[in-house]
């Protein structure tokens, strides 16, 4: 597709990129004396428009949710190709589907857990799922819901709702990206899938689950083949890292395994994989044409929201600044 159609969107985003919260400001927030002080620093940023709504720092989630909604509606306004943003917002659709299916099975309303930034508005989604009418859905999404329901009704295992829908979600995202035919975005998804699979594998190992289980939770469509994971479930963490030394992930694997052996926790890997994706996304900083900067801005913004959440949770609970900094994700600017 013609890369030039994104020109206007990109120069607009370049201005918006200057308004992202840079690392130094985040550091100031971390070093603030209280959560309220940290909130005040947000006042100097794009978030200030939402701050009037809340009275206490504890309500920071409201601000983050509003900002997420604002960003997605902005991106839909800016982008010349709707499908591009759809790939990212699909994740919220599937989240909403999970919530609604669980609400249905539990027979309790869970509307407060819906996030209204998906490709299908939550109100519509609610009506569709209530009537089990999936005619307006994408075939993959439709198949996902139907298969999930069959699976759930079979063994009444709520975990299957999540696992099944996660698998269909990535399938859906990958198929959208393939339709779009943008290598950068396809690779972005592939890397994400690989990193999720690696993390899943660590977690499955820790939970002492069997191979059959691993097979159901490993996502398809990454660079690394499913067999790589299936064959190394019984390997030690060290061996696994060695086995994958030919991949780009070796570095982060090595560092996380080192940390894992020390603390028994996987959170280093989580942070490093987020950083890995950020490094990949940062390549688009130097691209003036094509869809890359759009994806980059969206990811940058989502990471920023995540970082603010980490800081606010830390500040409200008086977590030590080093502990917060340890978990803070790499920022785009």
């Amino acid at each position, binding site marked *: 597709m013609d890369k030039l159609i994104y020109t206007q969107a990109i120069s607009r985003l370049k201005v918006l990129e200057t308004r992202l919260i840079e690392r130094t400001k985040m550091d100031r927030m971390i070093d603030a004396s209280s959560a309220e002080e940290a909130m005040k620093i947000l006042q100097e940023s794009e978030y200030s428009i939402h701050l009037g709504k809340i009275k206490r720092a504890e309500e920071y989630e409201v601000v983050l*949710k509003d900002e997420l909604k604002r960003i997605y509606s902005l991106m839909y306004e800016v982008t010349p190709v709707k499908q591009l943003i759809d790939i990212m917002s699909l994740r919220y659709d599937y989240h909403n589907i*999970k919530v609604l299916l669980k609400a249905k099975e539990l027979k309790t309303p869970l509307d407060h857990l819906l996030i209204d930034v998906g490709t299908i508005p939550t109100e519509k989604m609610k009506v569709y799922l209530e009537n089990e009418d999936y005619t307006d859905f994408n075939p993959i999404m439709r198949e996902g819901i139907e298969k999930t329901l069959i699976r759930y009704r079979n063994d009444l295992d709520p975990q299957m709702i999540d696992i099944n829908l996660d698998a269909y979600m990535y399938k859906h995202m990958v198929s959208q990206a393939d339709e779009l035919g943008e290598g950068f975005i396809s690779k972005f998804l592939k890397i994400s899938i690989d990193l999720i699979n690696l993390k899943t594998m660590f977690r499955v190992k820790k*939970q002492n689950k069997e191979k059959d289980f691993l097979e159901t939770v490993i996502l398809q469509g990454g660079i690394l083949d499913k067999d790589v994971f299936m064959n190394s479930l019984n390997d030690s963490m060290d061996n696994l890292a060695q086995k994958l030394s030919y991949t780009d992930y070796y570095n982060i694997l090595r560092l996380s395994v080192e940390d894992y052996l020390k603390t028994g926790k996987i959170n280093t890997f989580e942070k490093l994989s987020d950083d890995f994706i950020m490094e990949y996304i940062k390549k688009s900083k130097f691209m003036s044409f094509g869809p890359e900067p759009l994806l980059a801005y969206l990811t940058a913004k989502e990471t920023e929201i995540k970082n603010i959440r980490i800081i606010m949770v830390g500040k409200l609970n008086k977590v030590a600044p080093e502990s917060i900094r340890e978990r803070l994700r790499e920022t785009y600017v």
Partner: protein
Amino acid sequence: MAKLNVNPTRMELTTLKKRFSTAKRGHKLLKDKQDELMRRFIDMIKENNELRKAVEEELGASFKDFLMASAVMSTEYLEESIIFPKERISLDVKTKNIMSVNVPVMEFKREMEGDEGSIYPYGFANTSAELDGALERLYNVLPKLLMLAEVEKSCQLMADEIEKTRRRVNALEYMTIPQLQETIKYIKMKLDENERGNITRLMKIKSMMQEQEQNQ
């Protein structure tokens, strides 16, 4: 000390004396019970303290993990993940008798015994590994938490029982027994006085009778 409002008769004195000896025996028994209860109670309090410390420490750690999980996941994602539990745990409550106090004994059973992963009811793609850690900790603290509930409730019940026993002991010691003693003393005095009055009267009658005889 007030005395009981009774007629100073010999029959009353016998019943009171009987009551007095029962009260004394009861007092001794209750006192023994109180001592034993105290001993057990102190043991239990010690155990309770230790458990509480351990549980609080572990819960604190689990809470901290949870906090970090909530930091890296949005509330909606976090809640969605754990709102539909996979595992059911049933709790069985029986009672045990310690020194006539019915204390609870709790026992819980996992429905999916042996499946270590069953405490995680969510998928892997959108959840953080920190959540796994928090849930694992939380799950591991559960047996201790139940034990703590058990011990704490027992302590409460025993404290109530001790209080009750002490009140009874005190009532016996400071009310019933002195009252009975007083009343017995009073009746005895009254009876003695009656006796003395009788003797004086008899002596008087005798002297009057002698006087009459002399006068005739």
